[in-house]
């Protein structure tokens, strides 16, 4: 046997190489199929089957932070899904609850989960539960009570509670200067769309995430629509008081000089007069926000 790096060994390499390529391709292809076939239930359930935080805390030995980080990575993906179900959000909530048991100082997890659950998921109680848990372990972080304030004010329509949390936030180090004034407005002018608008704007400035910000812009537009509707209904009342009957259309308010012009509807719809009841509705706003109907400082749920 002539032991030279000749054609024989080149052929050998080629053969081995192509065998490996074929096997590798087959493995990757199968992985794609498996991934696709993995039932959605199983995928989402990965989070639901997390052990209780108190057990996990012991089980991960000294590696609590990294364990928390890993669970966070999983939870973040569930937050990020475009199409999200309440179930999915609840799983994510469970995950964050567990991971903050493992690492109670993980403040960004409380914050992000708190905002997402409040702003997107319409799960204010879960949001508040996480945020107040965060406050217990991290009493110095002003953002946590600030977000609780949001949940109370906007999602639970409880300006009194909202103001209470804003005041807690305002006393913490690093809290922005506008907080005490905002807290005062919450109580005094509860239900005032302008106060709500300011709160939303402040929150908007706090958040970096574009998609969260989009949601807030949407909320702000809804508040503006609500404010416009209220303005127009006031015009209708004045019209009725002056002429003893309801106007035939909103344009009558302008032609009779009661208002200068009909504001532009920010959501892309138009304002319409419900002639039978004398109320105004927006075609862009699916339902009027309950919070703004409560003129006096009280609340109802």
């Amino acid at each position, binding site marked *: 046997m002539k032991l030279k790096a000749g054609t024989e060994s080149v052929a050998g390499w080629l053969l081995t190489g192509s065998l490996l390529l074929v096997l590798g391709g087959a493995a990757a292809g199968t992985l794609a*199929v498996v*991934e696709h076939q993995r039932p959605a239930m199983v995928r989402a*359930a990965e989070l639901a089957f997390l052990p209780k935080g108190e057990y996990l805390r012991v089980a991960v030995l000294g590696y609590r932070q990294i364990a928390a980080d890993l669970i966070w990575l999983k939870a973040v993906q569930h937050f990020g899904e475009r199409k999200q179900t309440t179930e999915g959000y609840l799983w994510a909530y469970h995950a964050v609850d567990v991971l903050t048991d493992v690492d109670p100082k993980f403040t960004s997890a409380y914050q992000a989960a708190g905002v997402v659950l409040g702003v997107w998921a319409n799960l204010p109680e879960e949001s508040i539960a996480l945020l107040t848990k965060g406050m217990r372990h991290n009493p110095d972080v002003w953002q946590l009570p600030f977000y609780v304030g949001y949940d109370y004010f906007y999602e639970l329509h409880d300006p009194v509670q909202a103001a209470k949390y804003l005041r807690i936030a305002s006393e913490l180090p690093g809290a922005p200067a506008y907080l005490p004034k905002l807290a005062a407005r919450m109580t005094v002018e509860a239900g005032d769309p302008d106060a709500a608008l300011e709160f939303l704007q402040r929150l908007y400035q706090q958040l970096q995430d574009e998609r969260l910000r989009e949601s807030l812009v949407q909320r702000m537009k809804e508040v503006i629509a609500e404010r416009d509707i209220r303005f127009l209904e006031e015009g209708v009342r004045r019209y009725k008081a002056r002429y003893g009957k309801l106007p035939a259309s909103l344009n009558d308010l302008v032609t009779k000089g009661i208002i200068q012009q009909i504001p532009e509807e920010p959501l892309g719809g138009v304002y319409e007069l419900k002639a039978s009841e004398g109320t105004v509705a927006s075609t862009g706003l699916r339902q009027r926000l309950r919070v703004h109907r409560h003129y006096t400082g009280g609340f109802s749920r």
Partner: protein
Amino acid sequence: MRQVVVIALNTFRENLRDKILYNLLFFAVLLIGFSVLLADLTIMEHQKIVTDMGLAAINLVGVIIAIFVGIGLVSKEIERRTVYTIMARPISRTQFILGKYLGLMLTLFVNILIMVVVYLATLQVYRAPVPWALLQAIELIFVELLLVTALALFFSTFSTSTLSAIMTLGFYVIGHLTTDLKGIAQKSHSEAVKAVMTGIYYLCPNLEMLNMKGQAAMGASVPLSYQAWASAYGLLYAALLISAACAVFQRRDF
């Protein structure tokens, strides 16, 4: 084929006469027993704790055997120079690798079998249900172990035992995280990052696809087609590693 069987049986015998194996097996039985104790201490969910911990013990001990016996399969033969006398026989290096792999496969199978028997007996004592999903989960654990063994064998054909152990352990951990890495990559705005991450994703073994311990303990089975595809994936990946191991081993000097 005969040569492969001779090597495999000898490897199996070597494993059987290795005290470490018995210690590990003892450890597994202890873990399963411990779950009983733990279950008694908690007020509720006896059955769930016994079910969960048993599956975890089987998986953990299996992985330890796969890694630590796996890395020694070939590197120990080289370090102790026993490979010299074997290679002087009419046996090709590929046959040798295949034999070693099959031998450990047999060892793992017997071990899993023993652990499963103990596990099922424990469940019986606790009158915990034995859903079909549990057996599915165990089958997928076995596939995972075959993959991990192949990883260990592959690394040990070209590096030292210690390095092989570290690398196998590393890939085992990565293998359970790749799905998350891919998820993160999808959110990246950089196309390059996305491409690299997707590349890594398909290159690294995805062991999470073979993991259904959580839902199995709840009795939630997966479709048979999923189980078949997942097993096929694990076995194909193992075959890839074994082929690569043979290719490397074929070309090395002792």
